[in-house]
């Protein structure tokens, strides 16, 4: 049964093998990146509410501007992740004498971001859960806002819900990595072992960084 690009989630090997028969196309990967960006933009809404609540009435306009900027950065973040992952995989695969153009690598990397969409949805849910219970005390000066922000970082880093959200996102990264292994295998014409190393090294370092952050060692 052909379920379109969603087949990449469960059968990435066959999916990418089939895609290799066609010309590279970045439409669907770009769409996935857009959805990721949108989810990211939505996920900053609770933080934006907090920021607005912290600001005095005469600075609410600034809050709106900050909201737009934050959403824009979050939206762009989806594309940035796509591009960064793609270039990193392309460069690492060169060590293993990978062959294949960058466009194909970017296409398959984009498909591999699909699990991140689900992860983003769940992460956004956790974000709303986490921040909806926040008490915002009235603040009158910038020093209080800075102190509040520092406290907020401490709170968010120690909340079990935040840590669970982090673990869930790591699971989806692992899922993406699994897809990227198949993607690099075909896009860069690598052996399975080299494809695993191409993806595993950068993704493993990223996951290690996330785990250290979650454990509070940084």
């Amino acid at each position, binding site marked *: 049964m052909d379920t379109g690009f969603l087949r990449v*989630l*469960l*059968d*990435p*090997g*066959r999916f990418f093998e089939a895609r290799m028969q066609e010309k590279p196309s970045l439409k669907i990967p770009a769409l996935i990146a857009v959805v990721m960006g949108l989810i990211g933009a939505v996920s900053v809404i609770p933080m934006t509410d907090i920021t607005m609540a912290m600001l005095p009435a005469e600075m609410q306009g600034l809050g709106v501007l900050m909201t737009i900027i934050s959403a824009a950065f979050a939206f762009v973040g989806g594309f940035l992740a796509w591009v960064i992952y793609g270039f990193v995989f392309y460069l690492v695969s060169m060590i293993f004498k990978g062959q294949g153009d960058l466009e194909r690598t970017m296409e398959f990397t984009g498909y591999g971001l699909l*699990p991140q969409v689900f992860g983003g949805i*769940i992460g956004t849910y*956790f974000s709303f859960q*986490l921040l909806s*219970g*926040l*008490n*915002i*005390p*009235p*603040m009158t000066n910038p020093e*209080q806002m800075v*102190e*509040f922000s520092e*406290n*907020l970082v*401490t*709170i*968010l880093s*120690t*909340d*079990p*819900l*935040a840590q*669970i*959200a982090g*673990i*869930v996102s790591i*699971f*989806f990264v*692992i*899922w993406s990595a*699994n*897809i990227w292994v*198949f993607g690099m295998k075909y896009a860069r014409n690598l052996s399975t072992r080299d494809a695993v190393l191409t993806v595993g090294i950068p993704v493993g370092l990223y996951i290690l960084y996330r785990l250290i952050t979650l454990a509070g060692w940084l």
Partner: protein
Amino acid sequence: MKPIYLAIITLLCAVIAFAAPASAAPADITVVSSSLDPPVLMKGDTGTLTVVLQNNGAVPVAIRNARLYGSGVVPLSDPYPSVGELGAGNSKTFTFTVRADGGEGTFYPTFVLDFRDGAGSLRYPVPVQVEDTPLSASVIEKPDAFSASRTADITVRVGNPRPNAASGVQVVPQGTGFSVTPTGGFIGALAPDASGTVTFNLTPTAETDVTFQVVWRNGINTHTADLVLPVAFGEDKKQADPVITNVEVTPIAGGYRIVGDVMNAGLESARSVLVTPGAPATPIDPFRVYVVGTLDSDDISSFEVTFTTDGTVEEIPVVVEYRDDDGNRYTSTRMVGLGGTMAAPLEEREDGGFPVVGIVIVALVALGIAGAIYYSWKRT
């Protein structure tokens, strides 16, 4: 005269000489001893006066009666109305019950012995000492200050300043608002100028006066003397004094965390030390209460408590609970500021802060992803 008449007259004289009573001889009757039990009376005491007579003559002496009279020390018993004869070399004891009705001093009730046949009487003043000095009691050991429900050792010394021994000496604490062990202390006999001590474990529940009643017997007479010990609560200079220092308040998810040090600045050990956030703070997991245990003098221990507030509280009390060696509970409170408006706690979740739903989601996601990865490799 015929010899027979002379013999009859001689025999008659001899019979008369042996059969006729001797003439009264009061000078041969002497009081050889007198004694009083107890040796020294107190006012109102009843004692037993004993007088011993002896006939030092060669012939019996007829005695009509014996009696005792006097003022200050009065006889309670009846006189001896008919005594009879006291044989040569014999002695006789007369006993009278007397009572000291007068004041203190030495009294001389008179022992009177009337002889028969108009031979006169014997008067003998018997010295009786009356001294009203009671036993003295004093507290020789007590704590610097009393505290409610805290057991204190009270040592009472009882001394005997009287010239005679006291018997059956005991000390009985009396009053309300305290419990005491033992309920009475027995010392026994106290010789003149001797003393005895009794130690009580006194646990006051309220400020009160504790009366240590000293009970003793002087002969058959029971006497008491009271020693009042006021029990007023105060601060024990040696008691444990937990002090909280080095406090750091950190906002956490759903509340705050306070870490700090608790030090015993007192001279006695603080046992079973607990540190808890007090109202209006509501303790939350993981450190609703921090058990420090025993803090000896000058010991220090770190603690950590977690709690939540309603968001309007600017400071909360940190309560240190501890016990002394007797198990009495004490509390010490230190107010800790939360940093005014700077804290940003999250509201505590309905499930008590444990994200059960989150754990379930993690488990489901992990299973799903593991299945997807397994499936993808199986299809290869």
